[in-house]
């Protein structure tokens, strides 16, 4: 049978399977039902091949190769059997012997999940496992170096995605650590507190600092998908809601979400507190005869607003009205408001403060 252009066949644990030429082996295997564990791999980042959890046997190679950095080609013969399971268990044991604090902030810890799956335990703790604690005066993100496995996903995220200098992989040998550049506070680096490093961390070493009394493991939260209200990009977010209090505890996003691919900015990730603020308007208000604002229904409020606009239009003409749209509206909402301006109000004086 003729092969489709750009598609190759390779052998995965004895079965012949097809994949686009050049696809990363870890992805191709997953599509064919073979899950290969990874820790340092992140689809957003260039292949790194550091943690070695994903090594697989490849025919013709004297040593196993990392599936996260090996690309599929015609005739590749891959095995995840033989000694690969043993390597996974041993490498997990290794990572555990310096993993002093597996749960600094309630975020998921993929290393612990693997330890459970592979039956790996730390045979001892390294005497030099303890790293210098990092205490930052910023109010949003915490970092416990004792939960870090040096996969450098966070550092690579800052360099490859954010193009910033917030984090560094510092030093060499047992002293090597990941730290905001020069060990400064994040507030004194180029960091914009987007929290992308946090979202990329597989062990929860970087975590959200919670409001007093709201700490809760991420697994105990309910996710509500919505659109961020902060700007017109329309980032898709998951509000993580505490089922007991019905309050938002944190905001996350998923790499599969468009248009932001799981990336967020400081506002989208951290500035959700307004939702629960007592001053927040939850009902439309209309000013009464007494000069005070009174809660009312949307129908009534819109009638009052429409009536006012119509009155101005009749008395002074449609060119007397200009429309100023908020920068926090989405593109779709901006479209609707210009439609309203041009067809109902009949003015072309429309502006958004995003333009300034």
């Amino acid at each position, binding site marked *: 049978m003729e092969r489709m252009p750009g598609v190759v066949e390779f052998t995965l644990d004895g079965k012949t399977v097809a994949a686009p030429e050049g696809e990363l082996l870890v992805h191709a295997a997953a599509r064919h039902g073979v899950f290969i564990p990874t820790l340092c791999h992140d689809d957003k980042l260039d292949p790194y091949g*550091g943690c070695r959890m994903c090594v697989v046997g490849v025919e013709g190679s004297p040593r196993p190769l990392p599936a996260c950095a090996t690309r599929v080609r015609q005739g590749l013969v891959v095995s995840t059997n033989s000694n690969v399971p043993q390597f996974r*268990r041993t490498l997990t*044991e290794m990572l555990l012997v310096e993993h002093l604090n597996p749960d600094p902030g309630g975020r998921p810890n993929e290393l612990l999940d693997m330890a459970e799956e592979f039956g790996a335990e730390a045979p001892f703790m390294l005497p030099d496992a303890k790293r210098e604690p990092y205490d930052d005066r910023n109010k949003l993100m915490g970092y416990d170096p004792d939960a870090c496995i040096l996969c450098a996903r966070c550092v690579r995220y800052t360099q490859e995605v954010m193009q910033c200098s917030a984090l560094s992989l510092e030093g060499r040998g047992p002293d*090597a650590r990941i730290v905001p550049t020069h060990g400064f506070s994040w507030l004194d680096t180029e960091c914009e507190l987007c929290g992308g490093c946090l979202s990329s961390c597989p062990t929860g070493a970087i975590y959200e600092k919670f409001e007093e009394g709201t700490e809760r493991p991420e697994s105990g939260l309910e996710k509500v998908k919505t659109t961020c209200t902060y700007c017109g990009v329309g980032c898709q977010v998951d509000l993580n809601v505490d089922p007991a209090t019905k309050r938002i505890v944190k905001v996350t996003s998923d790499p599969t979400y468009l248009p932001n691919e799981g990336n967020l900015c400081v506002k989208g990730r951290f500035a959700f507190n307004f939702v629960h603020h007592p001053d927040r308007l939850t009902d439309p208000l209309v000013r009464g005869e007494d000069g005070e604002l009174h809660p009312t229904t949307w129908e009534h409020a819109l009638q009052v607003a429409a009536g006012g606009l119509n009155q101005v239009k009749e008395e002074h003409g449609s060119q007397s009205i200009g429309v100023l749209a908020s920068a926090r509206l989405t593109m779709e909402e901006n479209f609707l408001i210009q439609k309203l301006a041009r067809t109902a109000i009949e003015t072309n004086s429309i502006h958004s403060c995003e333009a300034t």
Partner: protein
Amino acid sequence: MLEELPTERTRLLDNLGRVRREVGPITPELSDAVADRMNIRRGEVHEVVSFYSFLQVPTDAVRVCIGPVCDCLGARNLLAREHERADGAPVIPVECLGHCDIAPVLMRGDRVEPGVTRRTNQGSVLGLHEPDSTEYAAFRDLPASEEIVAELKASGLAGYGGAGFPTGVKWEALAGEPTPRYVIVNADEGEPGTIKDRYVMELRPHLMLEGMLIAMRFAEAREGFIYLREEYATARARLLRALAELRETGLLEDRTIELVIGAGAYICGEETAMLESMEGRRGMPRLKPPFPSQVGYLGRPTLINNVETLAHIPAILARGGEWYAGLGANGATGVRLWSLSGAVREPGCYEAPNGSTLRELIDGYAGGASEEIGAIVPGGAASGILPPDALDVPLTRDTLREWEAGVGSAGVQVFPKRYSPLRLLAETMRFFAEESCQKCTPCRIGNRGMHHLVEELGHGRAVMPRRQAEEWLDAMVQTSICGLGQGAPFPMRNAFRYWPELFAPLGDPEAAAPSG
């Protein structure tokens, strides 16, 4: 001064070295200033600065070698004495300074103490006793490329840096690759016990430069680089002078040869880590394949050879590969420089046949053992640790395979009986842990774990069962990215085999590991 710094990323290490020499140790402020000048992100420059041992210490620091031979001969006392002396300059312990022939040794700034004495022999190939000359006879009379490859293959020459890859095959692999190509000399000698490249560069730099020039013409490379470790101050001065002399001969034509100075990182002797270092990044090895002959410096095909390897090539081309091959002993081909140090009467660096036995080397060149021999490291930290039983084994790749050891860089370190193999092993594993770049798990943690295991054994405690320790070693050999992690387990495995009584607390090697 900042305005004078070139802004190409490849100049980063050079710039940092210059700032350190002319301004002082690289502080966060200086690091950021260099980053801003070169338009590199500040965090990345900090990553590079902190990767190397020397950029954050002043140039007048006292560097005390704690390599295994120095450790055996009293380095810890020397370190303590220097700490007491403390006249303002910081005192730091460093891994092998490459002066094992005068151990224990330290460097006060660029000055080596005690003073350098070089013991060597004339030999039949390198002639380290001869005056260096700019004759370049082999280069002036160079045969066609195919013939060069044929002679190199016939000579049996294999890289003397430690990996032992056949040089002819390496050169041939470059032939089909597109130009431009680069040639790099690996002069980052840092393998404990190994001093041979320093001898070549200090005594016969033109021999190496001639080999390099031949490599450059073969590779049609316009640009060549010599990556020299920072600690070799004398070699640096000799090379700079030799380069000036070479320029005067006109043989360079439109080619350039540049000296790149390291900043204290053993791993930069690994060829892909070296490329990263030269490109202004942390010296962390790349994933292979691709190999440097396809994707090397700045992504171009690159020929990388060790100093000594290149120094042999003029003689091979002048007198023929077969002649060279015939110089070997016990079935091996050619000769090499053996660094002999430790418990021998005349430590030094001697040209002797490949395939020589340890006894021939120790008695025939180094004046015999100075004490009863307890253990021998045949060729650098990862080459293994052999018992005195191995004294009459010819040192070839094949014979040593049976001993689960290697010839490596031929840095033969002889340890007296009073120096415990456990101490030697602990120092060796500590060395690997310190010098690990920290990129891959098996090397980063495996070496620290093995160091911990050996240290605890010294107190009679077992941190994990023998079988599990062997699983760790296997994972290190099989899944580490580069030769550091892949090679580090060999001394451990040797010690298990040759000194089993030391490991009795770990239990039966056949018993299943708890996780298994």
